[in-house]
């Protein structure tokens, strides 16, 4: 297939597995974000695709070609590094030109001083200059071509790194946390630019980040990775609303999703601390009930919760509570005007739309809801 195909990639550092048989498909022209906590193996996976790391097992295809044993230079990929990895001795123009010079000029033409006199060098150099200028101006670097990386701001360096990646048309873009060294406002702006670059180039892109908001806002699909495994690959909306694994549910979303220990009896009736919550599930035994902070609604009846603190965030409120029987901390997102109708302290009841509830079994796997009991059951 076109795009990128990763098959059962495995790698260990000593005794620690960093990639456990990871498989992944990125369609041609697709933007895939690889998100996970630090140390989950996402960078190792990306660097394996680039050919910088050498996996112990598995296969990698890029653009329909098996590249498993190939060197990075033979894989036809472009990469943006977290540190940008610009050559400090070269100007912006020369930096962007490197990938082209390495491919369009032969060894003799690349020689310093005399290289320019080799046959064909002139035409090749002209084409390089043209492409470099075009890539640079598309990123607003036209005025900086003569500068060295040391004379640029972090944001400008980041653009040079992007320009170096787009200057030739690779089969895949690989980006390793390219925004993590920028300050917050620049980060949001550059997000949109990277998405635009991707649209214009239409090249399969793997974008590694630990920042879930980057992943959700930028990607066509998000792959959530943890402990060397890809837990779920889905569209941002699906990852958020329909996580198949408790670890995905808790990793994605801020504030973190509320999780309550629960128990399903033989009929699948779900109870939290003995209280039926109005749900029936497939299976029985210990479960985890998970509800997003914005799905919980305060009232007089429902799950009992004791108010602790309320944080004002401007556009919303976060109310911190705990479930008295289990001691589980809970958090609620509310509109600011809802505050007036709520007590400042004491016990209240919490409800949620039953179809928004997520239930996971003891192994953290999502269980299906069999039927929704009448909501009245929630009330004692």
């Amino acid at each position, binding site marked *: 297939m076109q795009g990128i195909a990763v098959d059962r990639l495995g790698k260990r550092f000593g005794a620690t597995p960093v990639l456990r048989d990871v498989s992944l498909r990125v369609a041609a022209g697709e933007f895939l974000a690889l998100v996970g906590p630090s140390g989950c193996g996402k960078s190792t996976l990306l660097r394996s695709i680039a050919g910088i790391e050498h996996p112990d097992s598995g296969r990698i295809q890029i653009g329909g070609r098996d590249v498993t044993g190939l060197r990075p*230079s033979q894989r036809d990929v472009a990469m943006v590094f977290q540190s940008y990895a610009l050559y400090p001795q070269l100007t912006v123009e020369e930096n962007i030109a490197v990938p082209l010079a390495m491919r369009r000029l032969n060894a003799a033409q690349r020689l310093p001083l005399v290289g320019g006199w080799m046959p064909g060098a002139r035409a090749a150099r002209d084409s390089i200059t043209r492409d470099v200028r075009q890539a640079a101006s598309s990123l607003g670097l036209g005025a900086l071509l003569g500068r060295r990386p040391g004379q640029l701001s972090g944001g400008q360096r980041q653009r040079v790194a992007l320009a170096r990646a787009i200057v030739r048309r690779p089969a895949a873009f690989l980006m390793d946390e390219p925004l993590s060294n920028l300050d917050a406002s620049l980060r949001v702006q550059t997000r949109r630019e990277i998405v635009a670059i991707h649209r214009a180039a239409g090249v399969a892109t793997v974008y590694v980040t630990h920042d879930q908001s980057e992943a959700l806002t930028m990607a066509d699909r998000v792959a959530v990775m943890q402990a060397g495994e890809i837990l779920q690959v889905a569209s941002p909306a699906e990852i958020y609303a329909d996580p198949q694994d408790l670890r995905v549910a808790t990793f994605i979303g801020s504030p973190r999703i509320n999780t309550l220990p629960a128990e399903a009896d033989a009929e699948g009736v779900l109870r939290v601390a003995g209280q039926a919550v109005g749900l029936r599930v497939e299976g029985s035994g210990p479960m985890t009930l998970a509800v997003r902070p914005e799905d919980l609604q305060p009232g007089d009846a429902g799950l009992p919760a004791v108010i602790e603190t309320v944080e004002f965030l401007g556009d919303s409120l976060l109310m911190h509570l705990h479930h008295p029987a289990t001691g589980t901390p809970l958090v609620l997102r509310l509109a600011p005007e809802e505050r007036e109708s709520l007590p400042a302290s004491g016990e209240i009841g919490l409800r949620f739309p039953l179809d928004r509830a997520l239930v996971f079994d003891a192994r953290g796997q999502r269980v299906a809801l069999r039927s929704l009991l009448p909501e009245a059951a929630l009330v004692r």
Partner: protein
Amino acid sequence: MSASLAAPLPRRGTGEALAGWMLTAPAAIAYGLMLLLPTLATIALAFTDYELGAPAFAWIGLENFGELLSDRGFAIALRNTILYVGIVAPLSVLGGLGLALLIESGTRGRSFFRAVFFLPVVSLPVAMAAAWQYLLHPTIGPLNAALRGIGIDGPAWLSSSDTVLISLAAIGIWENMGFNLVLFLAGLTAIPRELYAAAEVDGAAGGWERFRLVTWPLLGPTTLFVVTITMTRAVRVFDSVAVLTQGGPNKASQVLLYAMYEEGFTYFRLGYSAAITLVFLAIVLALVWLQTKVLEKRVHYA
């Protein structure tokens, strides 16, 4: 610095000043007695005809320097020193770089080989000179014995005026290479790994391409430092000359510092010796100037 502190400002200030003076005073006194005054005295001495034990001395202006210009022995010493530096500095720098790249290119035996090549740096130079004397001995030395084994009649390395400087330079390279190797290793580890990864992705497939695109430019500051420090160390060549040749045969291995030592402490012509010292100092300062003013700009890419 103390503005934010609660203590009253003036008292804090004078207390700090007093502490500053008291803490620097011992160093300042020693500096004055052992470094500043003697150095100034050396400069003054160079303009006198002072000889140790002479009842009086006179200011003779630039006469010592005039004599240097016409002194064939000094000219030879200067020429030999420049030649020695010209051989030792490039070869021990390139050797150190080559060894560092070779050691860095794999993982096995790194610290072992680093230690092996560094050993000459911590070895008593006088004793090692004696070992070299045996190694290079024309009749009983293992080197010539090995050469005889393949049918070559080796020269009298240290006692022939044709080979003595080359032999001393070889010893100098041997002494300096390990030091340079360690400096280059430190420089190599400071190069970000990501740059090599970027070079590979950009298409620099071969080792030479990566060296030209990443290693050599990024090693620039280290190389500059290694070159200057090796040159200043080589200009100071003394031990091997003093032990092995005393500048001979027939001044073929005479160098600046040994000439200065001979004039000053064998013939006790302190004024003249001081003039040689100043020439030596001028060379060292010129090297530092070259490093900071001329070359530094070309290796820092800010």
